[in-house]
């Protein structure tokens, strides 16, 4: 019987939630890496038992973890438990934790500074990995979106990482600046129909696309309007919160921006607003139904100054028309006195029939709907603040 595995990253560890295809009863396993911040955990589509996790700490820096058994056991890539330390001349271990910006003469030389809060230029400084995106076809290839914003790739299962420097180096890098959460590359979307095409999003720079597997990049922000920046229609500087697509229509992307819900039908060449009748179009998450490419989900948040649901009512909004016309989904969700947030990587869908929708809150709840959002129930209520939610549909 098919099943579902929900990978939850929190402020104080990782949790693995599992259920059969009915999605009625859940096993909760964790915390893994107790006490550490788990920004993101994601499984390889090519090998579902291969998981990657970003474990991070203000005290101890960045650690990458990998599992080969669906999250039961973990190790740092290249440093399996019990394996002896490398001899002289061997590849130094611990490189799985090393994210060094490209400073090479050929590709990294111009990549020096970005705009800082004070308007001055500031050097790039690595802080953490926000998002891990495994290749759709090769379990050993995985991308990492990091703060300060850059894209890294590993081709050896996370043992070592190399920057795709064309992103920072395409020309607009000095105009990027940190958002309130830092200058982070938080979204990586791989085009399932075109292995050369990658989308990323950065706060606060905007969305970018590569059509040559990450070598060269260009901004794709035409149509975005951000009233809070000096030029509201600037080429870069927009605080994009999240991008999602449906695999059957990779040219149609949906975006939750700082304010505004947007869509494109030409792979980001131009965007149009589809906020429509949303009660507020501020928010962080956005995702697409697994079987209906025009069915989209968001969780409206009151404002950038008040990161909680409007009127204390936690409501997912669903559009079955690709935006503009939205309906509130409330059954099973708290409709009074609810003041949690839902962070940008904390919503995901399964591919069962009916499609399951999942999201986690800063209050530690992980909610699930086994019927595309019509009815909701918490899987768990009292985890640490949830940073990310990913879902694997298992055979």
């Amino acid at each position, binding site marked *: 019987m098919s099943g579902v595995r929900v990978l939850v990253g929190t402020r104080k560890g990782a949790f693995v939630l599992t259920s059969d295809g009915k999605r009625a009863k859940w096993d909760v396993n964790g915390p893994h*890496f*107790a*006490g*550490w911040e788990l920004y993101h955990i994601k499984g390889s589509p090519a090998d579902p038992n291969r998981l990657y996790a970003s474990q991070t*700490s*203000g*005290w*101890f*820096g*960045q*650690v990458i973890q990998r599992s080969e058994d669906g999250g039961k056991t973990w190790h*740092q890539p*290249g*440093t399996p*438990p019990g394996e002896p*330390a*490398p001899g002289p001349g061997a590849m*130094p*271990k*611990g*490189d799985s*934790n*090393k*994210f*060094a*910006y490209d400073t090479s003469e050929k590709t990294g030389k111009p990549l020096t500074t970005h705009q800082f809060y004070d308007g001055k230029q500031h050097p790039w400084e*690595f802080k953490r990995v926000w998002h891990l995106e495994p290749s759709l076809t090769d379990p050993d290839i995985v991308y990492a979106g990091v703060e300060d914003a850059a894209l890294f790739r590993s081709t050896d299962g996370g043992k070592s990482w190399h920057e795709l420097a064309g992103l920072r180096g395409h020309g607009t890098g000095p105009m990027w600046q940190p958002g309130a959460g830092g200058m982070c590359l938080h979204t990586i979307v791989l085009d399932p129909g075109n292995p050369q095409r990658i989308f990323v999003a950065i706060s606060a720079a905007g969305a970018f696309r590569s059509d040559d597997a990450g070598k060269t990049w260009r901004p794709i922000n035409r149509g975005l309007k951000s009233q809070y920046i000096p030029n509201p229609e600037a080429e870069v500087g927009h605080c994009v919160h999240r991008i999602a697509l449906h695999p059957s229509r990779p040219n149609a992307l949906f975006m939750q921006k700082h304010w505004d819900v947007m869509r494109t039908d030409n792979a980001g060449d131009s965007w149009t607003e589809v906020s429509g009748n949303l009660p507020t179009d501020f928010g962080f998450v956005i995702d697409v139904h697994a079987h209906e490419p025009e069915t989209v989900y968001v969780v409206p948040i009151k404002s950038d100054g008040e990161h909680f649901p409007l009127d204390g009512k936690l409501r997912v909004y669903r559009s079955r028309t690709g935006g503009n016309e939205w309906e509130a989904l409330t059954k099973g969700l708290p409709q009074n006195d609810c003041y949690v947030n839902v962070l940008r990587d904390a919503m995901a869908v399964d591919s069962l029939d009916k499609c399951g929708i999942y999201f986690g809150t800063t209050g530690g709840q992980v909610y699930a709907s086994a019927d595309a959002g019509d009815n909701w129930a918490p899987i768990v209520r009292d985890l640490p603040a949830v940073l990310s939610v990913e879902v694997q549909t298992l055979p």
Partner: protein
Amino acid sequence: MIRVVLPPHLRGLARVSGEVQLEVAGQPTVRSVVDALEAQFPMLHGTIRDHVTQQRRPFLRFFACEEDLSHESPDTPLPDAVVSGKEPLLIVGAIAGG
């Protein structure tokens, strides 16, 4: 033999409990002890010193013999009591937050 006490999160990462004992060639210093620590426990690379700059992480400090060694040069010889194994080198996570 140099004795090192790690903060709990790093003990978990290194999969050890209690103190760590290290053989350090030459004159023991903070740098040579951390080098030896990372050689024996490669999963700790980057967690005590930044991978690229090799600077001590801001919220970690080095103590020994009731002295804060954090602002000493990493090449300063460690106290005799640490070298002899009588006292450990303490790697301490700052009590920060609130």
